[in-house]
């Protein structure tokens, strides 16, 4: 039973992976450093 739940979890993870790739998401962007956050915010709220 547990391995079936795990299989469902894997299927969801792969589906999320496909969607992310299709929409141009880059996971590395989650971990990048931004030293000038204040300036970035200014950009977004221009």
């Amino acid at each position: 039973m547990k391995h079936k739940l795990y299989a469902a979890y894997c299927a969801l993870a792969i589906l999320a992976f496909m969607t992310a790739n299709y929409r141009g998401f880059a996971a590395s962007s989650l971990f990048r450093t931004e030293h000038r956050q204040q300036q970035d915010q200014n950009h977004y709220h221009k």
Partner: protein
Amino acid sequence: MVDDISHPTEPDKAAFRPGPVQTFSCPNCGGVIGIRALGITINAVCESCGSIVDVSNENLRIIETAAVKAQAAQIPIGSRGTLFDTEWEVIGYMIRSDGSGRYLWREYLLFNPYQGFRFLTEANGHWNFIKNIRVAIETGGSSRIVELDERQYRLFEQGRAVVRYVMGEFYWRISVEEDTAVADYVAAPHILSKESSDGDIMWSQGIYMPHREIGNAFKLDKLPAPKGIAPNQPSPYTGKLGQIVNVFLVSAGLLLATQLFFNERAADRVVFDRKIQAPASARDQLLISEPITLTGGLANTVVMAKSNVSNNWVELDATLSNDVTDASDSATLPIEYYSGSDSDGPWSEGGQTTEVAFSSVPGGEYHLQVEVDAGAFAEGKPVDLQVKVIRDAPIWANFWLTLLLLLPYPAWALIRHWIFVLKQWSESNTGSVSNLTRTT
């Protein structure tokens, strides 16, 4: 293998009818001694006085008088139960212990007129179904491994086995305090035991039996639950682990195939590529690119920077701005490269290239704004830079992140399995810690 143990010859699934029980009078107390395996049984124990009587001839000689008081067996003598499609009758029962007498286990002699004899052993609520085998197994040298039927068994424990109590009948000459050298080799759920006495070696082969199966077979409701872990008890996680690992491998394969598909269809187009020399006066000044056209819908966009710094650093703050919507995204691209040599030889760290990916950037007209700072600026020196913008690049970060999300459950299952095996082998008295790495 189970079939090998239970059916050495052509299986006879017919249950045998209750046969006549031949009775004798105990020469010691006059009590009744019943013999179920007539013609095969050599020694029988008087249920009344506990004397061991030689019933192989008409003289009924007393071999041993009882030294200990009667002890009840969990499966009473005369009980019948079906195991491996054969009905067995319990005809003998004995309690044995290790040399110290602290560790006790119980052995039941089973009989079926068509199949012969088998044993059920029980220790701490763990049961094994055992058959004596007539094979020559090589155990020479320092090897802790023996092989039988293409299965490797590892030495788990060795010591003495002393008979402490007997009841019922036996097809060999039995004696309380009889002492034999024993060695148990395991390949869960199988066990191979060697008993040596007076130069004779007897091998037996067994399989672990869940206590509920024994209870069901002999219709016993209250068999105690097992305590601890038996030497040949199969890990309860082995089957689940296999299924989980299979699911993981299939998922990882599917994930890789999907990644390769996306790599193949990625445009991977360089939309901006400039080499510039930033003078020291450029510190904190905004360098703005010419317009960059990003085509298509949502796609990642990678900004790559390269500088041939040596024992120095450069840092770029890059902002990609949409000319129409003013939406922008920023990131820092640090470049640092140091090298030298010391007593350990030449060394280097860092690199001269770095890149950053912007997620889900819509198509449109953009400008790249870059602010540069560098270690060389403090010395008034310029730095050479190359900046590239790549649209819809193949990116592996999503693949690794997803793979990381798939890993914890198989890893947890593997850890639980290993904890079980470590606990199991911590009971081994052969000091074979090295066996642990070879057990699973």
